């Protein structure tokens, strides 16, 4: 692997890891809300959350660009705060991948929370633990497989994200050119099949490592509680 390729892989890894870090808390909270909230309004929220899945990624990219570009209110606010531009930066890659992966995370958490026996939460409340303490001590640990799965899916999706990133972050070497963008660039050049293969293999290896890590984590949790 060339140095440039190593750079691309490391960038991809950094982006995917940041995506997980950034979206895990809102993702878990949203998934929990969607699982436990009885109001029909939840379908609206669910629909909005799912948008990035159903929109063609390029469209998601344009929507994000319209919202976060340098000309926009949000884009300017970001510039005020950080002194850098959001679009066309590594941050933009993270934002694009996080948005696209968000529905996967949320739906995983939602499903897992649905599988948690509500009566356990009731018992926790009656033992004097409030709503948030109950969430942290009962719901979240029991929904852990879903949280892990969601994190792995979001991670994997970030490793494979092309469309939205290409629009919001553009394909700039060293800054936004993660694996899929690099692959796209390589495919535009003749005779780069070997490099493409190397990058793709690295990407698969990373996501497989994430998968195994998550599996180890849930096995460890199960082991810790001595289950079958």
């Amino acid at each position, binding site marked *: 692997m060339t140095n440039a390729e190593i750079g691309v892989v490391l960038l991809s890894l950094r982006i995917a890891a940041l995506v997980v870090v950034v979206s895990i808390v809102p993702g878990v909270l949203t998934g929990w809300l969607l699982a436990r909230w009885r109001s029909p309004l939840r379908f609206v929220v669910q629909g909005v959350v799912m948008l990035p899945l159903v929109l063609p990624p*390029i469209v998601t990219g*344009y929507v994000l*660009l*319209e919202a976060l*570009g*340098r*000309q926009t209110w949000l*884009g300017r606010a970001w510039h005020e705060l950080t002194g850098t*531009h959001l*679009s*066309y930066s590594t941050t933009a890659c993270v934002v694009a991948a996080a948005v696209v992966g968000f529905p996967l995370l949320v739906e995983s958490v939602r499903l897992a929370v649905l599988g948690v026996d509500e009566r356990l939460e009731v018992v926790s409340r009656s033992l004097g633990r409030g709503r948030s303490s109950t969430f942290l001590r009962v719901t979240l640990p029991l929904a852990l497989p879903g949280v892990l799965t969601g994190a792995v899916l979001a991670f994997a999706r970030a490793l494979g994200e092309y469309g939205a990133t*290409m*629009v919001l972050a*553009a*394909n*700039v*070497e*060293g*800054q*936004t050119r993660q694996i899929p963008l690099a692959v*796209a*660039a390589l*495919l*535009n*050049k*003749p*005779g780069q099949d070997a490099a493409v293969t190397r990058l793709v293999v690295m990407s698969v290896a990373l996501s497989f490592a994430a998968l195994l890590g998550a599996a180890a984590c849930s096995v460890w949790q199960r082991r810790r509680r001595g289950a079958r």
Partner: protein
Amino acid sequence: GSGDEDGLVVYAAASLTDVAEKLVGGEGRVAVGASSALARQILEGAPADVFVSASNHWVDVVAGAGWAAGEPRVLARNRLVCIAATDSALVGVLPGDLAAALPPDARVAIADEGVPAGEYVRQSLAATGDLAALRPRLVGQADVRGVLAAVAGGHVDAGFVYRTDALASDRVVVLFELDPTTHAPVEIVGLALTAEGVELLATWSAVPARAILREAGFGVGHP
């Protein structure tokens, strides 16, 4: 670059990836993508210094929106060819006979609508009267590289690409060239978006740059 700390940024059409990177060398970085996507990004304030497109179309849009720092500049010319796999039975076919020579369920790859190469080819086929016969066989690809890959992989029987692309692959042969008079001229247009971009673009008229372009198969020199 345009307020950016680390060097120049050149936005180049996907079909120019290779040559753009060579042209820029170590002086900056290249962002590649569909001309349309690049143009929209520039319109949204992307930090590009130079925009290199395979057609005037989006260059005009960008310039029209007031983002230009100089005049559009034709860097090179290209031609369109029809290609097939090296072992194709179509080798030797004449331009007008393509539709008839194709086997019954044959497919012909073409760059998608809106993509410059796709627009030029459709223009040409319409002018020669072959479009109607070929239309049911046309398979739109995202860009000319997609066409090239489909032909080289044997997934389609023939395809239309730039001459430069055809030269870059040894798994395809050129069946014929499209008559340049049947479509708008294929011009690689550069547009500087910043003062630094103007300087960079100026160097691309110099001899070394022209050698790079020529080596890649582009037509350079004065029309």
